[in-house]
């Protein structure tokens, strides 16, 4: 199990498309939401890979696809050499023991009817670990200790804890199976800053102690940069840039990364005043109908007349470990191309940009009304 040289997790050409269904009797597929559309990445053992991007760009879906919580449409997920996508039934269940997940909403991810003890012992029992009743009990206490919760918490229910504590419970549950890989989907974005810092510290501490490998998903670039070794930037289902976190900050190559970076406010007036701002035009286009060519061309301040609109850029390695998918990355880096303002971009692109979330929920009032308790006579 120790093929040290190899990355722990390798994702190749991963695609997840959700069918959009509509129909009279039987639902026909009329299109696809390309939530993840061809992602390659690799995570080395013991390191942290941070994934950032705007809401709806497919980060969560990617994370879930790795765990096979959603079925990938295409591509491979190699975990420690095994293709997760090919596993079935019991084999998959066993494999999941080694990959765990921490969720964004700490309350929602805990069954409100379970007390902490039952929450923490359930995975152990499901996998036949922990060695009997007493073993499980000790293990559960260890776990609580590891995440800094007192044993008094055992008898309590999720709603009785504060947000940070709930997230600790989520983390304790995730590490209960001693996984190799921990996927954290926005683990701190629902928390207050002070609590957020506590959880970030806890994650880092656990990584050191247990030698965990992390895939951390967040939309907060600062958090990602803080805890990641390598950062990947996603836009509309694909990676646009990937680099060691220092390199990415020092020299973002992709126009989107630059814009993102410039948009993150820094709690320091001095920096804020100096900072150049690249404003993007409009919103994220719908993943059901992504733009042609470079996905970003509709909002890109550096968009060129050639190539951008029709040629899909590939992820190129510009510097060691620094990959970027932009036709003009070098020119932009070298300052050969100058950005245009958001207004100009908007003007050239028109307003064809359809926002996400426009899809109306088709509501069957007959069905919905009746799902409520009702009186009939």
């Amino acid at each position, binding site marked *: 199990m120790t093929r040290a040289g190899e990355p722990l997790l390798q994702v190749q050409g991963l695609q997840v498309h959700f069918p959009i269904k509509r129909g009279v009797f039987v639902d026909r597929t009329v299109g696809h939401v390309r939530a993840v559309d061809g992602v390659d990445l690799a995570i080395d053992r013991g390191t942290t890979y941070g994934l950032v991007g705007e809401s709806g760009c497919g980060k969560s879906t990617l994370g879930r696809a790795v765990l096979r919580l959603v079925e990938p449409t295409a591509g491979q997920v190699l975990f420690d050499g095994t293709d997760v996508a090919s596993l079935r039934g019991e084999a998959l269940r066993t494999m999941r023991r080694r990959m765990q997940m921490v969720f964004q909403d700490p309350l929602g991810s805990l069954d409100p009817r379970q007390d902490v003890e039952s929450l923490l012992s359930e995975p152990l029992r499901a996998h036949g670990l922990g060695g009997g009743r007493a073993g499980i009990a000790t293990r559960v206490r260890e776990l609580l200790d590891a995440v800094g919760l007192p044993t008094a918490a055992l008898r309590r229910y999720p709603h009785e804890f504060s947000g940070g504590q709930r997230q600790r419970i989520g983390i304790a549950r995730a590490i209960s199976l001693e996984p190799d890989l921990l996927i954290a989907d926005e683990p701190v974005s629902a928390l207050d800053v002070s609590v957020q810092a506590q959880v970030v510290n806890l994650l880092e501490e656990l990584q050191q102690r247990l030698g965990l490998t992390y895939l951390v998903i967040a939309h907060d670039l600062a958090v990602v940069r803080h805890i990641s070794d390598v950062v990947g930037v996603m836009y509309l289902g694909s990676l646009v840039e990937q680099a060691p976190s220092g390199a990415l900050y020092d020299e973002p190559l992709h126009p989107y990364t630059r814009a993102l970076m410039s948009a993150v406010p820094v709690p320091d007036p*001095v*920096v804020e005043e100096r900072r150049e701002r690249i404003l993007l035009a409009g919103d994220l286009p719908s993943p059901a109908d992504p733009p042609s060519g470079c996905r970003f061309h509709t909002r890109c301040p550096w968009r060129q007349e050639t190539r951008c609109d029709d040629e899909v850029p590939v992820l190129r390695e510009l510097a060691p470990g620094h990959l970027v998918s932009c036709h003009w990355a070098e020119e932009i880096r070298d300052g050969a191309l100058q950005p245009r303002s958001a207004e100009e971009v908007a003007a050239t692109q028109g307003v064809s940009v359809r926002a996400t979330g426009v899809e109306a929920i088709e509501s069957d009032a007959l069905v919905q009304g009746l799902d409520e308790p009702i009186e009939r006579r």
Partner: protein
Amino acid sequence: MSIEALPPEGALRTDVPVLEVEDLSVTFARRGEQPTRAVDGVSFSVAAGETVGLVGESGCGKSVTSLAVMGLLPRRGVQVGGSVRLGGTELLGAPDRTLRRLRGAEMAMVFQDPLSSLNPTVPIGTQVTEVLVEHRDMGKKEAATEAAELLDRVGIPDPTRRLKEYPHQLSGGMRQRALIAMALACSPRLLIADEPTTALDVTIQAQILELLRELVVDSGTALVMITHDLGVVAGLCDRVHVMYAGKVIETADRHDLFARPRQPYTGGLLASVPRLDAGRGIPLTPIRGSARDAIPWAEGCAFAPRCDNAQDDCLTEVAGSTVPLEYDGPGRELRCRHPLTHPSSTAGATSSGSTASGAGR
């Protein structure tokens, strides 16, 4: 702004600050439950063209303060005390009619969640024009033209088409812009923005913040910016009031505050935020516990249980007496008996996080 929009008691004066809040307190008293004091003696003022920030963790009373200013708290089960003056006119206790005349025209508000703050069954256009019709006595047609201009001004492309659309057809950023357009419809003198960007992506947040910034510069509107994001405060506000458990615990100009936070709480907040410009691995030094761990102010300093500087005098022996908000140098006020000390140099601003006495874990 038209004369009719002014209250009959006399024109709002321009020689006083746009908004003066004095000793504002809000108590929620639900039947059968212990009354809770959500806001407790908050005072601040905002001048025209000034941006004032209210920061603090969730539940510290920021929104309640803003709602109390706007007179939007429910009547039942809420006690509001103190004084709120808009251009010299007292708002607390003012009749509903007066408040309605002022709201939207003289003072406006932008809320956190742009989706739920828009009526889902009414087209955007109507929601914008109704303000104009109400406060600026416009006809329907006129209002529609004006509304389109407003939407254009806040950066919504193709405004005439958008006017006919419903909120769910707009993206998050556009919804927030639409809300801002409504707030700006009558060029109010005071704009309160309650976490206007929290629900948005960073790139959109940047767009909105830029918009607000322009607004303050261009029209001299007084802006109260409520947020828990210290980064936003750093980029936007002139003065910052840090709140904790319903009280202001530190007030300072933006530069001062970030350079030399005095309250351990402020320091802790700054030390908790991972910074984009700080390297990987620099440990964060969070405050322990959470906002739930506050003690009542009546027993002393509510922050004491989480504070590393806490000393025995942070708790008072006389029930009801609390740690006061006191002058702490020019332009600064502080509510702390054992503030952080800083080396006199104000230079190394970027490392302010590390000056906070690190503890936690």
